[in-house]
């Protein structure tokens, strides 16, 4: 076995050194009646080329030949080569949680930088070193708000990612926590009147996503004012944090949480991703997850350590703020490297490209007779289009053109039959977007009337 460093002779020498005659004696403490008889029935052993072949065959049965306009909480963005090159350093990816700070300063400093980047993006004062993903980060934010307010009810926008709401329901379902969902209004934004009806003196927090699951940006200022008037906390969940390069951060919120997969982490069929949670300084002792803090060594040099561990399970056990043990360090590192590479200007330019491409696509699709954009509020790189006719058939037709044309929202909202959630990032080129518009037009029985293709000097400079 190529991963094992012992030779047969090493094994016999070592057995002899501990006074044993056979390897079976190593397991003498396990009663015979509890031992496995015979071998496990497993495939293998395979050589390295056979393993590669097996997974290449699996990888071929995928959508890799398709242009994807799927978003809905998992976003395709170009990943600069340097991200992968740096992640591949064994000192990073084969290290454990940095409890032994003196030989983990690399991980610790990178996580401190991650925390800083998240606070800069979200407008918050403190961020943790990451959580499993956006769904669990949102759930942890809700639990944190219940601890802070000592209240036991939650108000959640129906436009929070449906799977995030399902995870929340799993965590709080058995605790008698009442979760009230608030619908969207005609514009696609949170319905304010319904929100006001839902909040009561037992409401611990209101959870709003922006851009929400329909792609729509929420106007957070007014929501925050109302929530705070009721002495509840405002939690803002963000699934596409690239939007924060163009939109003012929800600085009025008490907790900003979500998913940072967009920043250099592959879509990878849903994981691993990287959740984040940021809040105000006064709440840090109720935060879940690991925190890296700056300190100094005995000679006065700056260094970093895991801190405020008194909140965590390995110290507090059943009284911990969360049962979380791991964070998503390596994915947080990917996000950190990615954000450093892009920098302020790069991130803004990228966000503008996403914005332009999504708006271009929305305009093109809406031209098809029978198609429409049902929600009027501002959006970023994702929007809802009402399909001209049967959405399933349209998606199948787009698949024939090698395009994954969006998520059929009926899957999550029965009332949104024939509504598609379309996400356009920088990875979709204009050719594919125009092809999609032609399918829409054809579908509606009309020939396409696209905007004149323009690759003039103004647009070329936009990058």
């Amino acid at each position: 076995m190529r991963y094992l460093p012992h030779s047969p002779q090493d094994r016999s020498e070592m057995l002899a050194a501990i006074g044993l005659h056979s390897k079976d004696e190593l397991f003498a403490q396990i009663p015979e009646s509890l031992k496995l008889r015979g071998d496990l029935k497993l495939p293998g052993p395979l050589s390295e080329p056979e393993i590669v072949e097996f997974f290449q065959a699996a990888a071929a049965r995928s959508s890799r030949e398709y242009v994807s306009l799927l978003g809905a909480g998992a976003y395709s963005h170009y990943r600069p080569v340097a991200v992968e090159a740096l992640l591949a350093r064994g000192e990073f990816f084969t290290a454990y949680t940095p409890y032994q700070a003196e030989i983990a300063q690399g991980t610790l400093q990178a996580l401190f930088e991650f925390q800083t980047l998240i606070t800069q993006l979200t407008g918050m004062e403190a961020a943790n070193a990451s959580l499993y993903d956006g769904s669990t980060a949102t759930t942890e934010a809700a639990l944190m708000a219940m601890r802070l307010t000592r209240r036991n009810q939650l108000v959640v926008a129906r436009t929070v990612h449906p799977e995030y709401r399902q995870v929340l329901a799993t965590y709080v379902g058995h605790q008698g926590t009442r979760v009230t969902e608030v619908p969207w209004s005609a514009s696609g934004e949170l319905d304010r009147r319904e929100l006001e009806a839902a909040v009561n003196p037992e409401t611990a927090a209101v959870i709003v996503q922006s851009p929400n699951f329909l792609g729509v940006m929420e106007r957070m200022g007014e929501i925050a004012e109302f929530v705070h008037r009721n002495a509840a906390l405002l939690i803002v969940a963000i699934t596409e944090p690239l939007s924060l390069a163009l939109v003012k951060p929800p600085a009025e919120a008490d907790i900003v949480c979500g998913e940072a997969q967009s920043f250099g982490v592959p879509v990878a069929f849903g994981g691993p991703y990287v959740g984040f949670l940021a809040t105000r300084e006064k709440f840090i002792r109720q935060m879940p997850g690991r925190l890296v803090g700056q300190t100094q060594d005995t000679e006065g040099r700056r260094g970093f350590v895991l801190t405020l561990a008194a909140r965590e399970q390995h110290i507090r056990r059943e009284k911990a703020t969360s049962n979380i043990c791991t964070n998503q360090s390596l994915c947080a590192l990917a996000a950190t490297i990615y954000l450093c590479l892009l920098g302020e200007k790069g991130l803004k330019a990228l966000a503008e490209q996403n914005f332009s491409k999504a708006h271009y696509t929305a305009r093109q699709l809406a031209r098809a007779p029978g198609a429409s954009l049902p929600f009027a509020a501002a959006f970023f790189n994702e929007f809802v289009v009402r399909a001209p006719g049967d959405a399933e058939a349209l998606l199948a037709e787009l698949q024939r053109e090698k395009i994954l044309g969006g998520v059929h929202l009926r899957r999550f909202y029965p009332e949104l039959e024939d509504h598609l959630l379309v996400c356009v990032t920088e990875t979709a080129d204009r050719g594919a977007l125009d092809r999609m518009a032609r399918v829409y037009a054809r579908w509606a029985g009309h020939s396409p009337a696209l905007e004149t293709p323009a690759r003039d000097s103004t647009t070329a400079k936009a990058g």
Partner: protein
Amino acid sequence: MKNRIRTARPHVNRNEALIFERSTPGKRGVDLPPLDVPPASPREALGDSYREAIEGFPEVSELEVVRHFTRLSTWNYGVDTGLYPLGSCTMKYNPRVNEAVARLEGLASDHPYAPEPLAQGCLEVLHETARCLAEISGMDAVSLQPAAGAQGELTGILMMRACLAERGNPRQYILIPDSAHGTNPASVTISGYQIRNLKSNERGCIDLAELSRAMTGEVAGLMLTNPNTLGIFETQMREISDLVHARGGLVYMDGANMNALIGVARPADFGADLMHLNLHKTFTTPHGGGGPGSGPVAVKTFLEPYLPSPTIEKLSDGSFRLNHDRPKSVGRVRAFYGNFGMAVRALAYILANGAEGLRQTTEDAVLNANYVLARLRDVYDVPYDQPCLHECVLSDRRQAARGVRTGDIAKRLIDYGFHPYTTSFPLIVHGAMMIEPTESASQDELDEFIEALRSIAEEIEEDPGFVLKAPHTTRVARLDEVGAARKPILRWKP
């Protein structure tokens, strides 16, 4: 004694600033391709909510980013650097082919909402991984959704609750031995149960009489780790599980220590009803400096209806599909289908080994731990003196008499080129030194490690003060953790 390292040489990489301090306005590390559609104006569309600037954000070139993170990496110690004998953490080699296949276009790029016919490769990987884990644990069904071991625990306890609730009474308490991992009680609490601690017997194992007293009609079940955190197998496992079952409870097994058992014994065969596995421990997915992990839950048939939704099914035509129609499921614990990329790596590891390779791996892991124990027992105290499985627990009792504690010995080990063992855990051993060499340690490396610990024991006799100030060779000396917690600085400010 003569080769002892006393000083460190300064290095050019040792003063890498924070990336924010390296930033200069106007730089960037990427160039974008030209925009191929007419530009739209976000400023116009967003009005007042348009963001002008991201205060403090770094602006650096690609080279500076590469140097920055390369330098940071050199301040880390990983399994690739050397022996990493952290007890209970199973720091084993992370095969490179795992990383390569997890990055294949089609596996790394597929979208979780891609149409099922176009996601057959990913679904097959998940299904096949689950099938192998079921065989290894002896269980009947597996969900890969939990994102890490602690989430696996939570999922499992919620399933116990759902099952018992359907039988008429979810009950109130879960029994946990005092040697358990900290996540156990934390997960139980979040699941809405209360803890009752079980005091271990003189062997460090579960005391049957104590269990019998505690296992009342109010108790939903027992959560145990086997082998336990002392690396000792619960020899009365059959009696333990029979007792819990007879009183209407369930047995949850924390599979953190499965590296001791694969191919030798299966939890389902010795009485566990459900368990979680840690792909980042036993199945070589990298720890990544603290994650991502992956904590699949494996259950017996009667608990299958409660598994998180969706599950993955193989149809008679050989294709795979997601089943969301699971009325008894505890629900969803994570968006999408769990840490898929970790399943790819774990499956690559299982395929590389096959049954015989995994059995050999287990034997080597147990051999290594016993070798370390045998060669250190005359120098360090062994609180529960018996053969171990995959890890051994010593204590600092003798060294503490000279004022040197487990944490200090650990720091001094760093100077000898090793990552420390786990300190101060399990809690039932005062001054614990928990050593798990794993199968990835060669005999030579173990000999060096043993010599280092023996040498440190001598140093403690001669000059305890020197050990108390360790490490002496690292970029930073001991860090002030108390100060860090008293006035937390959690971000850089200009």
